[in-house]
């Protein structure tokens, strides 16, 4: 299916957020996620299925003011 990951179009096999993160190669990187603008806690990534057209955001700690 087609989704967007951090703004880029990606063709990937359907699955949970956890599965998609794994396929994308995030491994155990410390990230936080949101789908279609809604926060998905790590605890709910297994139970959150991504469907075609979903927008997945994957963020990590950065510098800030």
């Amino acid at each position, binding site marked *: 299916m087609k989704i967007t990951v951090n703004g880029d179009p990606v063709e990937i096999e359907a699955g949970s957020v956890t599965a998609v993160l794994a396929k994308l190669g995030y491994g155990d990187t410390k990230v936080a996620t949101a789908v279609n603008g*809604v926060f998905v806690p790590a605890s709910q990534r297994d139970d959150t299925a991504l469907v075609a057209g979903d927008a997945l955001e994957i963020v990590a*700690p950065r510098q800030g003011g």
Partner: protein
Amino acid sequence: MRQFYGTSLATPFMLGTAQYPSPAILADAFRQSAASVATVSVRRESAGERAGTAFWSMIRDLDVHVLPNTAGCHSASEAVTTAKMARELFETDWIKLEVIGHTDSLQPDPFGLVDAARQLVADGFKVFPYTTEDVVLADRLLDAGCEVLMPWGAPIGTGLGLINPYGLRSLRAQFPDVPMVIDAGLGVPSQAAQAMEMGFDAVLLNTAVAKAGDPVMMAVAFARAIEAGQAAVRADPMTPRDMAAPSTPLIGKAFLT
């Protein structure tokens, strides 16, 4: 010194972590200035990048309080989602709430700010709202459950100092018991001292330190100025007067003409 959500800070100096020439200089600026709070953000991470992990471990080594922000958010919902991601990543319920309403001035949006503050407080966050000197807005933020206010000194990154001292004084006077942090717009240490002398409880800045020729020395300069202003309030300053008054006593002066 007032507490921030029950936390006593070792120093009233909050420092940003962006725009430094290098991570080493950033770390040194914190260590030598004894800043007690570091502001941070969340940004997109690519697979295998692991930039977040590196940055995060560096920040943790600083052993300071971490205050994540929602910088760049232009709506309440965006800010709320960002806050939740930040809480999970940084393992803190502190959030510096920015809801930008105007791109040129990066002025807070009073409406989105109150809306987001209400949602976040309900969700258990300890909200540090980046706000203006508006006393009515301040009142709404307190009603929404904020226990700290962070009025701007001047627009972010300008280094203009306190552009509306009258307004800031009114805000300080209106809510004598609320911890307030002057956040953004400072350019030189004297302005930080002035903020503390006006009765504010802490100062938060980033650009003035990170963009100085020598960020570490500038961080220390701000730390000294903040101490100076804080001590001045405790020491009870003289009252300014319009007419001069000799410091050296006139009595006993020799008559020599």
